């Protein structure tokens, strides 16, 4: 604090006391500094008193909990106890301390304490967590966001947003490239949403981009690689040949003779601008591309190479590869600026599609995209229809999360809004199911993770189509799509869903299929869906920690710190214990501090094995070894297939059973109605789905995905508007989206 006062003092003394003698200046400074120190000490004492009152019960002088005492802390944060103060900040800000049974610090006191700590720690050189990073999204105080006390003004910083891999791939498909391009613009790791606006195209990506551009240029100029039939009748690509050029202007330019005149050059530049950037070039741009690029390279290398080079520069330009959200529209008195109509057209198009919607661009050009009402009108139109002529290309390769994962027909999407489904895939994370390796010997082919993902996709799309109580349906419905991939075939059985015998299909399959009721009392929403359960499991076992963490972070807006460095997280190897029994090891206080946030939430999901099959009992071998799943009991241990095993008698003859403990508890959620013990997954999910806190947390995630950034306190009005639009409309996801797209956060920049 002294440090921060100094520059002000000096400035003050220099301006006001410029004529005073050096001596008196020094005295004055000393006096002021002394005063500052006194203020500082008083601050520190006050905050220390808060800590003593709330913490010293456990963290007192004699034998303190976790070896940490607050009583001996020096009041100087920057001193020897810096580390201790950092710990206190983390514990208090995350709400980890004081623990529930110790009584909380009063809200105002906590606020002041954190404010003081933040400024002291920053002055001491400690870096506070960067709230813009995806993993820190939940650090913004949830209650403050929805309390209504923050009234903005909401805006998003001016920004460039690298286009997503999907937008890039779709462009390739649009120009009719025979093979898909490599999407070099890979996104962040696994932590939550993958496309944040702070990402940039890195160095390694550029070489690939350049190669892509050459290929794309060849396609633009000469058409796609030709296919001819070879002797055996199968299609084969014609070596070197290309066909179906869609851009005669490029083609005639490339094959033309002699040096082109100025008008020919202008025409080709203007055409490229219109096609690639959807706008005419400015005079300056026209001259630059013509005189500084095309003309010299024409002389150097001829028409074909110059044109390819030119198209490459266009397709490598920032305007092509980044979404521009600078805020070029009108300026408000408080300094915020509207997105220009053109910027709005792009931003709104990309909320639903991976391409620019032609109609909204037209509206922008005609001056019909100037108000919020205009934006709403266009967005609602796009929600209910999409231009079939520019529909995303059908084909599994288009869906970039993996072969077979995708919905091969975009018709399934009703309106073809790929980004809606993408949000739910990334939010729930069920699409990772095929990444979790389960050895064949453990399930005898019973698990097809891609099929499960697709079933889950259908589950989401159905909820979106109905558009009523979307979140509640997704968290509690026990009507799933099963074997949705198998077109029009009867559902034989699917043991992962506990459908152990043939099931009549109530529909014709395919696009018309309807969900099927699961066996009663077993399932409730996505978190009990096998795709989600497999995606959040280990190779051999369930994973109550990861599952609990998911609930804590994605439904309760809580934070679980990463596993501390130096902790070897290892469960005891005890084959006679269930996983839950083995997890008793985390009840030790140093583990429990974090694990209490996860395990009690994940434990009810022990009602399913690591393949997602519902169970009431663990199977146990004669020598008392616990078997992870029923599938394993059949296929690995008996070395027979499931089908055979039935003819050879029931497994009970060989295995004993032990009941599964599915009790759990919701704690520290910040919603008193929500907290409390639960006795099973179905009860837990229904209670979660009824909570406003969970709904609001969901709203926060929607905001993050579509804004490409974390929410901040000034975004509070936007979040509240989204939440209330959703509630008022009876749980319509579309209304929630309308509220977002017409908000200040979405439309204003600064």
């Amino acid at each position, binding site marked *: 604090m002294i440090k921060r006062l100094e520059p002000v003092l000096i400035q003050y003394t220099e301006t006001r006391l410029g004529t005073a003698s050096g001596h008196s200046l020094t005295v004055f400074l000393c006096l002021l500094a002394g005063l500052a120190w006194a203020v500082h000490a008083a601050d520190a004492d006050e905050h220390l008193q808060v800590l003593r009152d709330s913490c010293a019960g456990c963290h007192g002088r004699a034998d303190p909990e976790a070896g940490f005492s607050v009583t001996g802390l020096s009041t100087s944060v920057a001193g020897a106890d810096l580390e201790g103060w950092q710990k206190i900040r983390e514990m208090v800000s995350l709400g980890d301390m004081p623990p529930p049974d110790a009584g909380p610090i009063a809200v105002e006191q906590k606020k002041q304490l954190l404010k003081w700590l933040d400024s002291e720690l920053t002055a001491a050189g400690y870096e506070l967590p960067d709230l813009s990073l995806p993993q820190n999204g939940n650090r913004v105080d949830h209650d403050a966001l929805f309390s209504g006390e923050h009234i903005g003004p909401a805006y998003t910083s001016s920004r460039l947003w690298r286009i997503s891999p999907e937008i890039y791939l779709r462009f390739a498909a649009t120009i009719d490239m025979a093979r898909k391009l490599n999407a070099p613009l890979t996104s962040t790791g696994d932590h939550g949403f993958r496309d944040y606006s702070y990402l940039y*195209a890195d160095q390694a990506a550029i070489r690939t981009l350049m190669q892509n551009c050459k*290929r794309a240029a060849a396609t633009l100029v000469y058409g796609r690689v030709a296919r001819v039939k070879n002797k055996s009748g199968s299609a084969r690509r014609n070596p*070197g040949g290309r066909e179906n050029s869609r851009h005669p202007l490029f083609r005639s330019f490339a094959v033309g003779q002699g040096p082109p005149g100025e008008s020919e050059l202008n025409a080709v530049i203007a055409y490229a601008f219109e096609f690639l950037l959807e706008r005419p070039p400015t005079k300056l741009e026209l001259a630059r591309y013509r005189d500084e690029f095309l003309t010299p390279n024409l002389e150097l290398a001829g028409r074909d190479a110059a044109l390819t080079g030119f198209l490459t*520069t266009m397709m490598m330009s*920032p305007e092509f*590869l980044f979404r521009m959200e600078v805020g070029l529209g009108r300026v408000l008195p408080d300094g915020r600026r509207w997105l220009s109509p053109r910027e709005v057209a792009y931003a709104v198009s990309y909320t639903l599609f991976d391409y620019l919607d032609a109609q909204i661009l037209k509206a922008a050009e005609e001056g019909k995209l100037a108000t919020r009402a205009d934006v709403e009108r266009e967005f609602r139109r796009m929600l209910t229809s999409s231009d079939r002529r520019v529909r995303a290309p059908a084909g599994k390769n288009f869906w970039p999360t993996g072969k077979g994962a995708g919905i091969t027909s975009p018709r399934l999407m009703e309106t073809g809004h790929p980004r809606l489904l993408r949000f739910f895939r990334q939010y729930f994370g069920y699409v990772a199911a095929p990444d979790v390796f389960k050895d064949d010997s453990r399930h005898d082919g019973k698990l097809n993770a891609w099929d499960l993902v697709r079933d889950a996709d259908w589950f989401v799309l159905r909820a979106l189509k109905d558009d009523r109580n979307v979140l509640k349906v997704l968290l509690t419905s026990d009507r799933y799509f099963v074997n949705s991939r198998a077109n029009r075939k009867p559902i034989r059985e699917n043991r992962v869903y506990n459908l152990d015998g043939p099931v009549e299909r109530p529909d014709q399959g395919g696009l018309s299929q309807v969900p099927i009721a699961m066996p009663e009392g077993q399932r409730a929403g996505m978190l009990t869906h096998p795709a989600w359960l497999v995606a959040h499991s280990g190779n051999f076992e369930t994973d109550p920690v990861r599952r609990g963490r998911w609930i804590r972070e994605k439904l309760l807006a809580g934070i679980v710190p990463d596993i501390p460095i130096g902790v070897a997280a290892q469960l005891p190897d005890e084959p006679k214990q269930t996983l839950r029994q083995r997890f008793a090891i985390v009840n030790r206080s140093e583990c429990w501090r974090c694990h209490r946030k996860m395990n009690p939430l994940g434990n009810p999901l022990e009602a399913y094995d690591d393949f997602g099959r519902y169970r009431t009992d663990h199977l146990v071998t004669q020598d008392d070894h616990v078997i992870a799943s029923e599938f394993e009991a059949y296929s690995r241990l008996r070395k027979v297939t499931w089908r055979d095993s039935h003819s050879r008698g029931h497994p009970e003859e060989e295995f004993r059973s032990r009941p599964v403990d599915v009790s759990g508890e919701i704690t520290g959620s910040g919603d008193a109605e929500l907290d409390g013990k639960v006795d099973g997954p179905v009860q837990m999910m229904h209670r979660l789905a009824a909570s406003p806190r969970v709904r609001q947390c969901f709203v926060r995630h929607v905001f993050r995905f579509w804004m490409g950034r974390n929410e901040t306190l000034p975004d509070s009005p936007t979040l509240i508007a989204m939440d209330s639009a959703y509630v008022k409309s009876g749980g319509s996801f579309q209304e929630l989206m309308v509220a977002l797209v017409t908000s200040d956060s979405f439309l204003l920049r600064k």
Partner: protein
Amino acid sequence: MEHPLSRRKALHNACAGLAVAPFLQGIAARAADQSGRTPKRFVFVVRANGILPTELQPQGLESLVRPRGARLSQKKLITAPLKDHSLSRGLAPLEPWRHQVTVLQGLSGRMANESHGAGYGALGACRGAKGGAPPTTPTVDGLLSRSFNTPFAHLGLAMEEIGPQVVYTGLFAAAAKKPLPCYADPMTAYQDLFGSVVTDRQLKAAAAVDRNVLDFMVSDINRFRATLPGVEKEKLEHYLEGFRSLKAQGEKLRAMKKQLTAAAPDLTDDFRSDVEIERLKAHFQLATSALIGGLTQVVSIRADHLGLRLTGLGLGSKTVHQIGHMIEGEKGGSGGEKFDNGMGEFATRERIMNFHMQQIASMAKQLEAVPEEDGTMLDNTVILYLSDHGEKHHSNCFEWPMVALGTAGGALKAGQYIHVPGWGEDRHNTIAHAYVSLLQAAGIEQDQFGQPDLTLPSSIDQTGPLSAWMS
């Protein structure tokens, strides 16, 4: 460049008799390895369809393997010097280097087992990625490439139908989620590798346009950047940096003009051929020239893939996959289908492998012609030939036969047959052991690689190198 001219001259003289004479100054890589150690080079040749154990089996040792993923309950490690055994017919082109050859049998790769090919698992000893999923760990070539400082850390070359210039094969990865690209079109590779020294007028012009594109982009982005607020400026700075480094790489290559001119391959018709195996020849020539020119120390070549037709080898219109199904001596597939001329599966496989081996032999011959330290460039190289999928077309990866040529500077033992104990037996080895050997041969102190085979008994140590291979 610490190499005296006299040495260069000596090299020149030493190799003057060879038709491939101009690339004699195989000195660049030495210069590129700033540590001053003799550079080591690693070449991986990966093909599809699995390799039958019998395809590699030296003569006189046939009784140790069966054609179809034998899973003989081999209990003990068997080694035999190759000086007593001629190489198999498929490997015959390598006879002149028999003392440099190592045949590896009995390694398993269960952790990578996927149907029809292990993808990144083959060189990653990790779970084989299915359906275009991104890699989860680096593959061994990707890991090796990280420790060398050459203009191209990793050179990937892939057989593909005519069309794409660059492909991601799903076989090679620099790190998790970072697949390595491969040149599919030899001409594109040629331009990127040797474009700075080409004499062909048209190619020269194309290279000049490429340079102009980079220059124009840098000025274009700079201009645009000036209009942006602070944070966003930084984002573009990264983008700009990428272009600058590409430019820098171009300049680096132009600075290597002399040695690149010497090493650049003749632009034969192979480079533009529509016959598959001619383009494969071009790929091998590019790889060899890049190694000699010091452009890279790690090369990965995908020699074929299941959807490809190997035109030029007299195999009609059959794809590699169809060839894989001409299964002889076992039920399933097309059950011993034969070509019209009576050529069955074994003979077809032999023909393909023979062709691959001719290319490897040609590479070895050229590397051998370049003296380095007390020996030749070949002495500091190891070429590993394997399939992306175990011991047969529909492999379960209980066995993964491989053959290696070279000792990587004496780090590896050569001229021997190594047959490790079968899967599940005591002291069994997996492909991960073999890859740790390569890493250690490169001086990378690593004891573990990829993911362990979780189905192996815990008594089997899955760390460390394949000790029988280490010298």
